């Protein structure tokens, strides 16, 4: 896998509400690889994710991103999704075709077929016509991943995608996320669970005391890396 890296950090300094959170962040997120972002609660994982998506302006330094905006996908931990809105799973997945279709172009049969293939891969084709509000947490997460597949996302930021999700969903999603990486996407996943990390990550970025540390996945065994995120880390 030799892909040009599309996401780089240069001496990044980030602050939330005038309080420094992260300093001196350097690094390259390899394309075609899954990078796990770990750290204790409050270490600045979500802050970094916001900066990567261009939602937070750095105090100094910069995030260099060569992925067009329409091909970036972000599934935040606190979803902005309005679940009472009358929309079905299929309709949600189809909105992922925005980069190619925009606001006006009609969906053609080929796109509907692709949408159905994606839903079958994710095991949600039986709930395709159910409203979003009636789904389980796992089904909802799969539908959202379906939208990013439809979007052909080249940069994918997942903030704790496996929190409050059943193990069947985890088993379906991990190979799909791996496949997206093998197809060349840059994927960054905020994780707490060491088991998920071992199955998914090619590289690990640990945030601690306002600094970043790049690690190899098998280097992350000591629970001390995650000083307070101990519940899952301790199991490793």
């Amino acid at each position, binding site marked *: 896998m030799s892909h040009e890296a599309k996401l780089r950090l240069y001496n990044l300094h980030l602050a939330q509400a005038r309080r420094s959170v992260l300093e001196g962040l350097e690094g390259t997120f390899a394309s075609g690889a899954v990078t796990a972002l770990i750290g204790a609660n409050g270490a600045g994982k979500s802050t970094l994710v916001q900066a990567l*998506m261009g939602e937070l302006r750095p105090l100094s330094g910069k995030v260099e991103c060569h992925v067009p*905006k329409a091909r970036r996908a*972000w599934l935040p931990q606190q979803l902005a*999704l*309005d679940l009472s*809105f*009358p*929309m079905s799973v299929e309709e949600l997945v189809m909105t992922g075709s*925005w980069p190619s279709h925009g606001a006006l172009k009609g969906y053609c049969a080929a796109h509907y077929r692709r949408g159905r293939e994606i839903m079958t891969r994710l095991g949600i084709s039986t709930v395709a016509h159910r409203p979003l509000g009636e789904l389980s947490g796992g089904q909802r997460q799969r539908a959202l991943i379906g939208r990013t597949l439809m979007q052909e996302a080249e940069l994918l930021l997942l903030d704790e995608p496996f929190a409050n999700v059943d193990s069947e969903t985890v088993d379906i999603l991990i190979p799909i996320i791996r496949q997206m990486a093998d197809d060349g996407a840059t994927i960054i996943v905020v994780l707490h669970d060491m088991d998920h990390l071992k199955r998914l990550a090619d590289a690990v970025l640990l945030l601690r005391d306002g600094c970043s540390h790049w690690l190899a996945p098998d280097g992350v065994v000591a629970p001390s890396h995650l000083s307070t995120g101990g519940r899952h880390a301790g199991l490793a």
Partner: protein
Amino acid sequence: MLDLLNAWLVAPFDYGFMRRAVVGGLALSLAAPPLGVFLVLRGMSLIGDAMAHAILPGVALGFLVAGFSLPMMSLGGVLFGLAVALLAGAVSKMGGQREDAAMASFFIISLAAGVMLISLGGSSVDLTHVLFGSVLAINSTALVLITTISSAIVITLAVIFRALVVECLDPLFLRGQSRRSGWVHSVFLGLLVLNLTAGFQTLGTLMAVGLMMLPATTARFWSKRLEGLMGIAVVLAMLSSTGGLLLSFHLDLPSGPSIILLAGAGYFFSAVCGRYHSLAARWRRKVTPLVHD
């Protein structure tokens, strides 16, 4: 029997003013309810009410400048409504105040200013007319204005439909996808103002909201799908505007309140007997069996 139907449903339209009123009502019924459906779904049901008050000073200014001229009053209303919407948006962005709080402050100021302007320039009869409208006094100019605005609203809504749906569902996703995502909300508010200005002649500034919101809230009792909600709301609005006109003709009632009260009756009926979320739906509690495939 046929004679009775003829006397009740057809004969009133021998009068020109009734024909114009019903066409104006149908045009508004096509444009207003879809906007109402989006307002309800976004939890902004009261914004329509606030906007209706916000256009009042503009209408009053138009009235003071040009007398009882619908185009001038509408123009004033649109300009003032848009200004208030923009100001409310700006204040909420600036001070971190929620948009509805800013809107609430602006609309009450607008209402007071509007009433003040009308009282300074006219008599109390004019005030009643602006506040409560008179569907039976629509002339051809007014009718052209109403139908043009309604058509413009329906066409614009069709163009921004997907963007609007995605923005309601997941604003963050739309922000990532399109640099113009901020426009969607502004265009929507603009359509709202336009619709209320078109409605004020027939129903008055205060009642124009009724034809927008009541069919939309009623439709929630009958459908769970977006297309269904809009279709049902439009049909309900058409039924109540035409029915309300006939009632006001035969029983010698004021037309605006007749239309809105008829829509209101539909709302109460649906709250009791509707398919979803109604009293009847609560009693039914029918469970669909598991489907194995």
